[in-house]
């Protein structure tokens, strides 16, 4: 009833294959964009921007990156954290070598380095699949983490072993370093994330997106239909690592201000992987939903005891939050193994026929 496409006729293939053929979806997206670009900047305080929205968007972008590889091309990867790290260190090196260049351009450029490294570590994917491939990407994770610790050149031989983001200005505003305001950071992160998400939506609906899904669903049939497995998989690795690299660079430039090798550890890889699985493999919207669930929910849960006036120790809150989130992950995976994206589809179907059951 609320979500009925009746009467929306398509008279051209162009209209039929639009990203959102149904009017209600387009309106919904506009509402979300309006909230993100207007409502949140006007009403949100610094805490909400810095602790919730910026990390949420950074993780969403990383989840999109991993989703390209795992959800769309079917190649399981546990190296996401390291590829994000490559982006962060590359952006740091670039901005210290070229201090006058626009730091946003440097962040976008840093993804190229992680794309190259991702493609190299994607080479084994021609021979091995599934969990075995995951183990080789695990090797990437440990090797790159070792590089971040041992190769002093990467962090400019800083005594602390961490990278500290210098003060940089662009378009007359302070965009990175400790003095950058949350609202500026938020707009940069939002624009980059939304932009890349839109570009990926384009790629995924066309020939290249289809070739990735062909490899995912039936690699032998794909090959017999003329898809070159190595090129296709390496492109997926490169694109995925590019996006992850940009997300990693944004993470340190516009959120944390400083990062050490442990920021990009295996724990981060798993966190992103859970976002992708929980959000729904093979869905861009799912990446946002998964990131929201894993990042925003714990932040809110931590505030519940304080707001309702129960006096609990901070550690207890932390532990209980872990337990609740863990239980919810298990609950949602039992209810719908295909993630929030599928739940949302089911909900849309129900809205379509409401108030009738079918």
């Amino acid at each position, binding site marked *: 009833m609320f979500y009925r496409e009746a009467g929306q006729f398509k008279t*051209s*293939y*162009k209209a039929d*294959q639009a990203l959102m053929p149904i009017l209600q979806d387009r309106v919904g997206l506009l509402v979300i964009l309006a909230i993100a670009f207007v409502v949140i900047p006007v009403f949100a305080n610094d805490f909400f921007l810095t602790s919730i929205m910026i990390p949420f968007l950074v993780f969403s972008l990383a989840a999109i990156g991993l989703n390209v590889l795992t959800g769309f091309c079917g190649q399981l990867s546990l190296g996401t954290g390291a590829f994000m790290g490559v982006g962060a260190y590359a952006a740091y090196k670039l901005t210290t070598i070229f201090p006058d260049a626009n730091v946003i351009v440097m962040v976008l450029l840093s993804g190229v380095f992680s794309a190259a490294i991702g493609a190299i570590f994607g080479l084994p994917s021609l021979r091995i699949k599934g969990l075995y491939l995951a183990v080789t990407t695990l090797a990437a994770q440990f090797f790159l983490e070792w590089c971040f610790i041992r190769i002093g050149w990467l962090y400019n031989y800083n005594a602390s072993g961490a990278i500290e983001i210098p003060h940089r200005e662009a378009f007359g505003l302070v965009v990175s370093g400790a003095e950058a305001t949350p609202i500026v950071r938020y707009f940069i992160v939002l624009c980059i994330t939304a932009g890349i998400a839109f*570009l990926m939506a*384009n*790629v995924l*609906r*066309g*020939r*290249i*997106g*289809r*070739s990735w*899904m*062909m490899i*995912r*669903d*039936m690699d*032998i*049939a*794909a*090959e*017999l*239909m*003329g*898809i*070159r*497995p190595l090129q296709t998989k390496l*492109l997926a690795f490169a694109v995925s690592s590019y996006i992850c690299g940009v997300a990693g660079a944004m993470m340190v430039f516009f959120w944390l201000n400083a990062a050490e090798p442990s920021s990009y550890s295996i724990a981060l890889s798993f966190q992103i992987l859970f976002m992708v699985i929980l959000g729904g493999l*093979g869905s861009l919207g799912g990446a946002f939903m998964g990131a929201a669930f894993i990042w925003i929910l714990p932040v809110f849960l931590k505030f519940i005891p304080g707001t309702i006036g129960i006096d609990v120790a901070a550690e207890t809150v932390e532990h209980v939050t872990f337990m609740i989130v863990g239980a919810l992950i298990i609950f949602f995976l039992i209810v719908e193994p295909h993630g929030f994206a599928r739940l949302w589809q089911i909900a849309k179907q129900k809205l379509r026929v409401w108030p009738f059951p079918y």
Partner: protein
Amino acid sequence: MNAFATEMSAEPASVAEAVPREELLRVDNVSLSFGGVKAITDISFDILKGEIRAIIGPNGAGKTSMLNVINGFYHPQQGTITWQGKERRKMKPYEAASQGIARTFQNVALFKGMTTLDNIMSGRSLKMHRNFFWQLIWRGPAEREEIEHRKKVEEIIDFLEIQAIRKTPVGRLPYGLQKRVELGRALAMEPDLLLLDEPMAGMNLEEKEDMSRFIIDVNQEFGTTIALIEHDMGVVMDLSDRVVVLDYGKKIADGPPEDVQANQNVIDAYLGVSH
């Protein structure tokens, strides 16, 4: 009426006599073994342009291995394959696709997570060339290319009468329709040679009749050469122009359906004799 009938039945024969059909593919003395197991031993046959060629034989006779050799998935240890007059070198499976060989599979090998439309569009992959950066932008060349190929795909959808399931994920379709979508996907490649591995397996009579009609139409309307493996002898004898019979990896008969039917070796292979 009678005269019309004779004229109709006489016509294809006279055409065939007038223009000797060109050879599309020729297999010479091909042998294939996996370790100690000989799947195919010294088989030779040819496929002529525009014909329907059946490959039959009991289970394990090497029929599917033969198809896999033809589309480059297996490399025979001995023998040569001549494709459109040129001897073919050892090659990767994706090269066979670009040379114009398409196939369907015995166990439906559709892309389960994709819709019918996307599955058939995937058959156009080799004919689409817009690179990554055009795809990123989408507006303009990439979109125009997509629409152009969508038109071709819609023609195939019309031909196979699957308009209603255009946007349905193929995993949800019944088996008979999946087989039809798979045929559509192969047709979207506009192949010169179409290999069908048991197109009627597991179908009921009505679905078999539909599928037979599609195969004949593909052959006659698009002029596609077809090589098919099938166990339903009625279908094989009605559809095919020539039949090659394999048993234990060896060729035991080759010729028009009626000759093959009468061949003692074939009868023995199917009914079984004490060796």
